[in-house]
């Protein structure tokens, strides 16, 4: 009997403790490298989806995987997202660690039923007997001038669904670290790749010694107020902090990295240290992840707050056409306006 409840795990024995390799990579390259390293380490890792084979994915994240690992390990499927995720469920049930690509955020919606009713629930439904170690990669959010249905910030749909891990890297290093962690995880992960950061470059350490799933990091220290951001909003928050510094205000920036599980400890410590906070995210506002952050941090840190936590994010509108998208995206000015509103004592 070859099918096993807990599929083959990335064999850590194989990892020789040497100095990690370093390099400057774009986020897309870092993701590609993470897939390669995981595939090389564990034959159970398979990659599939639309155009991930010969084409290497529309964002080239799977570039060369079919050539290097063969058609059995990285392959194109028929054009059907529910089928892709559903097949991944079955493969994960039967000893594999599938990593599937949804071509764009809005094109993951046809798979919503599979994600919510099966991917998220399988372990729970079976009292831990059937694990689904699988990763659903979603190029997400806007800022690239994409036409409708290509720019959705869909994280709230997944984050609201118990049983999923939801990750969103903001740097190439985290893209590598978190994708490796996602593939190694015994639980399903929705892995959100900020499209507009695919080509941003940064230093990457492989293997990574950075914290994995469930840890936020403080990207910039500051004393006056804390900006809480994730994914594509992180560089914007950092820019805002830079601009604020020039005006004499010291802003701290927390990068969540992991939306679920949420790192209450790091976030709350940061907010308590400043007493004021703004959440920055691209998604439409109503009942999104930003609302959760405001609610949970306020619950935990109420007495440390000098002002209500503000949100800077998308309006409650469908993602606009390219020529108007800059109005929808959180920008430096809007963040600074929100910071100005934090009931500063005169």
């Amino acid at each position: 009997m070859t099918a096993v409840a807990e599929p083959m795990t990335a064999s850590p024995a194989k990892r020789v403790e040497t100095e990690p390799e370093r390099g400057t990579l774009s986020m897309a390259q870092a993701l590609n490298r993470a897939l390669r390293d995981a595939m090389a380490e564990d034959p159970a890792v398979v990659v599939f989806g639309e155009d991930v084979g010969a084409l290497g994915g529309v964002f080239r994240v799977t570039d060369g995987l079919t050539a290097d690992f063969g058609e059995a390990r990285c392959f194109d499927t028929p054009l059907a997202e529910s089928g892709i995720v559903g097949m991944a469920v079955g493969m994960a049930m039967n000893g594999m660690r599938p990593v599937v690509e949804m071509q764009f955020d809005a094109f993951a919606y046809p798979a919503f039923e599979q994600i919510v009713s099966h991917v998220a629930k399988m372990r729970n439904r079976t009292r831990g007997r059937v694990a689904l170690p699988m990763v659903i990669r979603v190029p997400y959010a806007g800022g690239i001038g994409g036409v409708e249905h290509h720019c959705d910030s869909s994280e709230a749909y997944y984050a609201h669904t118990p049983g999923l891990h939801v990750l969103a890297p903001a740097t190439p290093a985290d893209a590598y670290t978190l994708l490796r962690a996602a593939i190694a995880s015994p639980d399903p992960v929705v892995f959100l790749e900020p499209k507009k950061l695919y080509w941003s470059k940064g230093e990457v350490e492989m293997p990574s010694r950075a914290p994995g799933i469930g840890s936020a990091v403080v990207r910039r220290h500051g004393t006056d107020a804390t900006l809480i951001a994730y994914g594509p909003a992180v560089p914007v928050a950092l820019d805002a902090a830079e601009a604020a510094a020039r005006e004499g205000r010291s802003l701290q920036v927390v990068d969540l990295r992991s939306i679920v599980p949420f790192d209450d400890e790091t976030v709350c410590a940061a907010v308590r240290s400043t007493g004021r906070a703004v959440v920055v995210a691209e998604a439409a506002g109503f009942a999104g992840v930003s609302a959760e952050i405001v609610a949970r941090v306020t619950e935990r840190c109420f007495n440390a707050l000098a002002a209500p936590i503000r949100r800077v994010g998308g309006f409650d509108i469908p993602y606009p056409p390219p020529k108007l998208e800059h109005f929808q995206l959180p920008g430096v000015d809007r963040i600074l306006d929100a910071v100005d509103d934090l009931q500063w004592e005169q």
Partner: protein
Amino acid sequence: MTRDPSHLLPAAEPVALIDADGRAIKGADGTAYPAPDDAALVKALGALLTARRLNDQAYALVRQGRLAVYPSSHGQEACQVAAAQVLDEGDWLFPTYRDTVAAVGRGVDPVEALSLLKGDWHCGYDPHEHHVAPHATPLATQLPHAVGVAHAATLRGEPTVVMAMCGDGGTSEGDFHEALNFAAVFHAPVVFFIQNNGYAISVPLSRQTAAPSLAHKGVGYGVPGERVDGNDMAALLAVLGAAVARARAGGGPQLVEALTYRMQAHTNADDATRYRDDAEVAAWVERDPITRLRTHLLDRGLIGPEQLQDFAAEAERVATHLRDGLNRDVEPDPADLFAHVYATPTPQLREQAALVADELSREGAR
């Protein structure tokens, strides 16, 4: 791609080997489907009798309040038994909510199989133990999983075949389409087995499809479709057995439509008189799969009264086991609520579990 679809189309009439009176159909063993061997038929009768007993026992347990709800396969037992009997140990079965009896046929303890419907837990058995997936309630959603299990086996060179079950109503869902298409493109060893029992709750087949038959859906995927009399045990074993053998030999997926009937309401909660006539039901009672096979085996002298007594005793034993099991109340552990959401509970779940534990201890203290 060959353009000639004839090898993919079902025959004009469903495959039948034994008629409604239990007689072997003349010339039927000269067809592509020779009759299954006698031992298999005798074994199947035993399983059929147990299956019927299980269905009726479970139904009774609903009335007694021991089960919340039961979607019975009364009348469809030949399909249930055949689906399990044609599989090897390493094969997988993907049952729907109505296929408890098929799951039991694979070795799942009926008490565990019914824990979902008792309200104890979502899936009461270990799917890996007998290679039986959890009962699927969202229609057709289990079919892509079946393809994935099969494809994983193919990639590793294992001889696994997957039996993926579905109702006539389920064929209308998008996931049915995607699963058949994926199976065909990946040449996955899956037998898609549709129990066409004429209804999706209240909706008759004519409102489900305008196709010549459900088996005709295969050709659109390049998957051979076959129709079989779903109350004819011999025909089912022959057709499903051949489909499994073909899949195991690398022949790819197949679609089998069994024509059967849901003799009772959708579940005990349903009122079938709102949408169908008693006369229709009565006509199908005449074609009961059990009477047919029993008559056939008795006529051919393959079984006698003693064997029938043994079968009845075994059926009774299983029913008693079910009754005893469901009459025993095991309080589910609230800690289970939080234990299996993830392999390791998140800090948030640990907090929430602590809250419940605290509530319980305060209640206990009162």
